């Protein structure tokens, strides 16, 4: 199995390289070129100063040299400084990372604990009322624009009912709360963003769990279990579930990129102080270094999610674990 992990890690190297190349290409897409990356669109900078910066940062050098420079900076996580406030990009991103991770981890948990049972039970009771209801729910889940849902929920729970806060991570008087108060405040702020963030994933994973379980229930070894005299509920929850879980757990790891991607919208709508919101604000203000920083970190997190998914898969499936 160590061999398997080593192979996966090795596999990632070209991917990492690819990320650097693509981000490099993107930087050069902007009309002003990478010069904008460094000096922003400030009109105050004279043509002379620009020319000096060009040579200073090697912008007049051939592309492959520039790429090498870019690569060496990336390795050190040196994304430069933000145009907005001049702070180091990497620091700004790391500051916001915990909030994003918090949101995403809770979303994943929600998805797992709700979608999985729904999917499994739908498969076991195929064509029942529950199954049909779930199918409808899934279809809606795939079709609803998540940000719209966010708006509606904000309207309902925040404005009309006033039960939940609609922005930020903490209330204004957070520092004055007791420990429990702080916890409760955090949870209240988490509920809407987590739910909206998880919504699409819920639909997807329920469907996937159902399919996976149905596939497993069709297998010969389930028939063998019954022939052995195993009671039906054990057939399902021991023999079948264990097998159905394998692809599902892997899928969870792969859900991370989707969650991070969606985070940009949800964090913005709910004013959640995470990486996504930082990225969005950077985009709106054309703060290129920050955009790059957020983008690369996001890609890295995705890779990490994939790696975790692969490792979990190897762990959980004996066919991989023992060759």
């Amino acid at each position: 199995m160590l061999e398997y992990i080593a192979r996966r890690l090795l596999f990632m190297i070209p991917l990492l390289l690819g990320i650097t190349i693509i981000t490099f290409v993107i930087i050069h897409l902007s009309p002003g070129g990478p010069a904008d990356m460094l000096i922003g669109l400030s009109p105050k900078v004279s043509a002379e100063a620009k020319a000096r910066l060009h040579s200073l940062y090697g912008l007049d050098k051939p592309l492959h040299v520039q790429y090498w420079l870019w690569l060496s900076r990336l390795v050190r996580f040196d994304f430069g400084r933000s145009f907005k406030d001049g702070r180091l990009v990497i620091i700004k991103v790391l500051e916001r990372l915990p909030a994003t991770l918090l949101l995403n981890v809770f979303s994943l948990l929600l998805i797992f604990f709700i979608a999985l049972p729904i999917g499994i039970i739908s498969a076991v009771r195929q064509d029942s009322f529950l199954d049909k209801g779930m199918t409808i729910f899934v279809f809606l889940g795939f079709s609803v624009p998540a940000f719209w849902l966010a708006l509606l929920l904000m309207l309902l729970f925040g404005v009309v009912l006033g039960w939940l806060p609609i922005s930020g991570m903490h209330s204004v008087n957070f520092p004055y709360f007791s420990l429990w108060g702080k916890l409760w405040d955090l949870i209240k702020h988490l509920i809407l963003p987590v739910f909206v963030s998880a919504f699409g994933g819920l639909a997807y994973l329920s469907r996937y769990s159902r399919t996976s379980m149905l596939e497993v229930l069709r297998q010969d070894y389930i028939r063998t279990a019954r022939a052995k005299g195993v009671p039906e509920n054990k057939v399902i929850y021991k023999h079948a579930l264990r097998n159905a879980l394998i692809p599902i757990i892997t899928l969870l790891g792969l859900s991370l990129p989707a969650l991070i991607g969606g985070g940009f919208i949800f964090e913005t709508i709910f004013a959640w102080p995470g990486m996504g919101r930082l990225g969005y604000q950077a985009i709106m203000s054309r703060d290129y270094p920050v955009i790059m920083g957020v983008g690369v970190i996001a890609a890295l997190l995705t890779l990490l999610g994939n790696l975790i998914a692969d490792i979990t898969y190897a762990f959980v499936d004996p066919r991989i674990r023992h060759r």
Partner: protein
Amino acid sequence: MVMEKILEVKNLSVEFYKGGKVIQALRDTSLTLKRNEVLGIVGESGCGKSTLALSTLKLIPEKEGKVVSGEILFKGEDLLRLSDEKLLQIRGDRISIIFQDPFTSLNPVFRTGYQIAESLTLHKKENLSTRQMEKEIIKLLELVKMPKPKDTMLSYPHQLSGGMQQRVMIAIALSSSPEILIADEPTTALDVTIQKEILNLLTELQKKLGLSVVLITHDFGIVAQTCQRVSVMYAGIIVEEASTSEIFHNPLHPYTKGLLESIPSRKEPPSSSQGEKRRLKAIPGQVPDPSNLPSGCKFHPRCPKVIEECKPEEPNLREIVKNHWVRCIRAAY
């Protein structure tokens, strides 16, 4: 001593539902298994033999098919009308079944020893400690002549060869000391060299443990080697039934004759010493579509001896010779 009928299938009819069509997998089939006997059920794919096996333990999912009528009597008790609880006591306990493809029939995520232990736990009344359990498992694996029992116990199914996997299946099946073993094409998925080993093993175990066995196959060669009595199935019904030697020496149903003639014989070279070539005879035509069976005798479209009377009504089984039953109006001729 009177031979007891341990399993009696009486007028069993089973229907399948596929794509909106009704398929008659078994039509009014009856057969008997005596204690200590090895009964062979022969037929081509789709003739209903596997359905017969699965119906015994009610292993056909409700959505796929249903028993329409008939009884399956195990020592006089109708298995089809048992409560779920009682059925669990029969499955894997009094009647065990092994399947065609051992690789897909074993759960890939549990160790082999665990899967055997599960069966032991379900069917042995005493609670065994871990060490006792391990001993029992190794005993079973030795019984099925597994080369390295301890290693096998700890492995996963995918780490074993086909032959070893099938031995594990047999071990699981025998863990409860059942009275009946149903073997549904146990060697079809295995290499030819392993086939013989497994068949020999089954024969040995049958004699040693006094099992009553139903062996389902499409291969007459296997029947010749292992079975005492044979039932030939075609299109969901039994068309001939006799002892093995009787069937080989005196096949009476045209289908059986056709099957026997289409087996290449190792002893007869393709060209005999007189320069004549013996041709392999194949039965013309194809097995009928189970959702659209012909009228009368189901074999009549392919039968070399067909006459007009074969077409309107399906004949009954008649005892032409003692203990030799045939479903054919031309069999006496």
